[in-house]
């Protein structure tokens, strides 16, 4: 089969994919590393079949050494497959043009230590053939977004691991990619940074970007992914949507305000009448993540100086347009305000900051599955009755202000009315 024929078939594959367009497709992908004597040393990936559709967050989950990073490197053309085929936007992975639409964050930020943060982003901007004006604008926005604008002239070699990670994330976004490949994106980040990355992923997905997320941190994947492939030994062991994989049958969860003993007894009586009973009544605790974010917020409000990264701020303006030119939160393509203005976005967020704080707290309580609540006001009740779908938040249901809560949380300057 000639390369032209293969590419034509790949193109057709993209076109004929049911539902959403397939952005990345791997068929029978295999990678065998050989030693000096050409003996098979390690079968890192073994007959992998994968398809990632436009606009979804796809999770590659697996323990260390399961072949996630090797798969990603083959997708990027850094490794040659031993067998199988890869199609990225209908083209071969070593096609240079294809990479114009890809953003990549490796598992470690392999940055030039002698370049400053600004020079680093300028370098990667040049690789995308961006002119000087575009580069400058995007670099300003990205540095602001990842909270490194105050230390942008320091060599990256002097940065902490978390700060390097932030620059790594910024470089992955400099081309406003259609396909973002993130390999362990939260590795080395503090909870604030981790939260921001997850918010960023959901924001980008909302704007029509496709994201391939590789991680062994289960919570990261669960929080943001639409579909997941769980790998082990180079093979996919389970595959499906997060709900398909995680929904437990045979148990229900009811969340309500603080209950008196009388109320509990009454509920118990009702349940007994329906042939079941209460298994557990629990009083949720505040999540450590929220406590941490509150402390940082308080410190920033007080103007405590830091030599490290500031908290990240609003998503860069150039990333806010969807892949098809639509604007954030506007599925119909209607524009809501000037999204190119970062300040405008922040002001919008600030207007709803109090509301979003409350919503966020509620949402976290819901996500914690009965272990968290609105500051002790709610109880979570485990019950083996019929499921209550409203209590389990769906990834697609996440509202924009909720995703952007981190922006308002970590922007004390704006919150204090400066």
């Amino acid at each position: 089969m000639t390369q032209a024929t293969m590419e034509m078939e790949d193109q057709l594959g993209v076109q004929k994919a049911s539902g959403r367009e397939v952005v990345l497709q791997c068929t029978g992908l295999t990678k065998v590393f050989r030693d000096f004597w050409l003996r098979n040393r390690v079968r890192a990936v073994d007959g992998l079949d994968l398809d990632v559709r436009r606009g979804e967050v796809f999770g590659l989950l697996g323990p260390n050494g399961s072949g996630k990073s090797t798969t990603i490197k083959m997708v990027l053309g850094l490794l040659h497959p031993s067998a199988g085929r890869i199609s990225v936007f209908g083209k071969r992975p070593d096609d240079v043009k294809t990479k114009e639409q890809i953003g990549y964050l490796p598992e470690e930020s392999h940055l030039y230590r002698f370049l400053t943060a600004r020079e680093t982003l300028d370098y990667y901007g040049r690789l995308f053939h961006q002119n000087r004006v575009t580069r400058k604008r995007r670099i300003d926005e990205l540095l602001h977004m990842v909270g490194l604008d105050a230390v942008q002239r320091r060599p990256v070699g002097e940065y902490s691991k978390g700060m390097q990670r932030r620059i790594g994330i910024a470089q992955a976004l400099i081309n406003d990619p259609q396909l973002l490949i993130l390999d362990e994106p939260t590795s080395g980040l503090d909870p604030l940074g981790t939260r921001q990355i997850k918010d960023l992923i959901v924001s980008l997905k909302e704007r029509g970007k496709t994201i391939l997320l590789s991680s062994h941190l289960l919570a990261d994947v669960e929080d943001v992914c639409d579909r997941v492939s769980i790998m082990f030994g180079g093979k996919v062991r389970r595959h499906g949507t997060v709900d398909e994989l995680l929904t437990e049958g045979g148990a229900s969860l009811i969340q309500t305000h603080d209950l008196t003993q009388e109320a509990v007894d009454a509920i118990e009586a009702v349940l007994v009448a329906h042939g079941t009973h209460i298994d557990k009544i629990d009083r949720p605790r505040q999540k450590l993540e929220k406590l941490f974010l509150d402390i940082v917020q308080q410190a920033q409000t007080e103007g405590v100086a830091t030599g490290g990264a500031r908290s990240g701020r609003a998503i860069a303006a150039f990333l806010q347009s969807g892949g098809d030119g639509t604007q954030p939160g506007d599925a119909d393509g209607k524009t809501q305000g000037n999204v190119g203005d970062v300040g405008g976005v922040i002001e919008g967020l600030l207007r709803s900051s109090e509301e979003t704080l409350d919503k966020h707290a509620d949402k976290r309580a819901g996500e914690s599955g009965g272990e968290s609540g609105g500051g002790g006001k709610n109880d979570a009740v485990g019950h083996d009755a019929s499921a209550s779908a409203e209590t389990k938040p769906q990834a697609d249901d996440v509202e924009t202000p909720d995703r952007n809560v981190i922006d308002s949380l970590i922007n004390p300057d704006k919150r204090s009315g400066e």
Partner: protein
Amino acid sequence: MNRKVTGNERVNFLNTTTNPTRGRWSLWLVIYVVATALSMGVSYLLFKQEMAGWALLWRGVLGLFVLIWLTRGVMTFYELPWVRRFGMVMLSLELALIPGSIAWITGHYGLMTGVGGVWLMAATFGVGLFVIRLLLLPGIAVFGVARTLIDEAIRMKIALVFIMGVLLVTPMLPFLLDAGERLNYRMEFFLVWSLGITSLMLSAMTVFLACGTITNDLSQKHVFMTLAKPVGRAQYLFGKWLGIALLNLLLLTVAGAGIYTFARYMQMQPARDAQDRFVADYGILVARRAVPPLPPESMNLNQQVEDRIAKLQQQDPDQYGGDLSVAEFNAVRGKIVQQWHTLGTRDTQTFVFTDLLPAKSIDAPLQLRFKPQSVRTPPGELVKLAFWFNGRPWPTYEGRHYNPGQIVDDTYHVFDLSPSIISADGVLEVRIQNVNLDVPDATWDSSVSFTPGSGLELLYRVGSFGPNLTRTLLITWVRLMFLATLGLAAGTFLGFPVACVLTLMVYFTAVASGYITESLENFVGLGASAMPMWDRILWFPKTFFARLAEGEIWSAIKIPIRMLGQTFVWITPAFSSYNPTPLVSDGRVVPTSMVLGAMLKIGVVWSGIVGVLGYVIFRKRELARVIV
């Protein structure tokens, strides 16, 4: 996004640990300017009042304060781009001004000039670097890779050491030479060493940089980030090459400007005598063409060669029967030419120099350069030669042929001639008579010969020093670019140390290719100098097995050693064939053919082959290792 500095964010001056840009840079600048003015102005006034000691003390103490103040300010306000640039320039200037002014006060004007030269070259380099960065500003991937490589060279110490070496050597060298030596020797020495050291430093920098940048990118996995972007592997390699090429071009330009300036500066220094001055003015900082002599028509050299071959074929039909190879023909011809360059006792020989109209048209003296070698004269003894130029005896004294007296044997001599001596049709006939028997008490047969080529030649000016130096630097740059290509190619599949060793090995072989070939010939002679190529190739196995059969083990082992050495020399470009330094330091023109030859053979053919090989290896290479 700018933020206003609020009350609790204001920090004390020079105590800005969190955000250095918030300090009061204006106060720092005012104090710096005032201290600098006081330092220089007061020391100047004291010096003019003939209080050199106080001037020195004032300049030293306040200069030190200014230096510390400036350094502290640059460190504090480093985040401000203008302070960073201004501070670095002033810091370098201050570092030059302190020793420079101390040298001036203490009367060491040479040292002062040297320090000034170092600063000027460093400043020129800085400006050039700025221009290169501007040129690489457009959003082109190759430019991005090239610019990052230049940043790597400047900020990583490995290349900076060599850059500093280049910037220091040229300005300081003239003042390290023995001032009592003849001026023309010092100038020649300066040119040879400054060009040689510059070339060596830049070669070392190129090798370490080219090998280091690729191997470092691979080992530190920077390449993952770069090649995951829309950059082809060829573009990546070319970007690296372009960065090294531009850096070398800049450094060669700066070094060339320094060499030119200091050579002219040396030319202005006092000479030992008139002859010294004459050579300094007309024999070094010029571009002269060397013309070999032709035999007079009456000699019929070609007929003599044919007669000699016929005689040899008759005497030894086994050796010379049939058609002679080119090498054999040239060997016979060489012997005839050597005979023509040999003057027996009382013999006279005529040497004709033609096509000299360009030399006649310029207002500059010609030089007849010759080196007599007598057969039996003891070393350092004298020979006696008489000269006629276009029939006129030379030199003359009161209208008569002045007996030239004795000339030291086995030494180069130069006669300066007026261009008017050339005939109207551009010919100069030089007749030389060996009058050695006139030496009183001579008991030996003293034939005199000249080595064909360099032993007797006429030199005339065809250009100036500047273009000649430019051609020299261009050839040096082409050689460096080959090294860069080789280093990059080696780095694609070898580790840093091995890549460096390989590249340096090729470099030294290329530089010493002529010497190595000669040494290999002495190590194991082929037995016949004029052997055709195929016979030479077959000679190795045949001789090897023959010597083994004869039980000459060591003698046999030397055969493959020579074969390996010969092969390595053969696959290495002959830098020694394109070495312009001896020419430019002797005031000879670097021919355009040498420049074009270097560009074509080293720059295009050799670099092209190595570059393509490197690309093919890099393209096939898997950039990541097993990570499971």
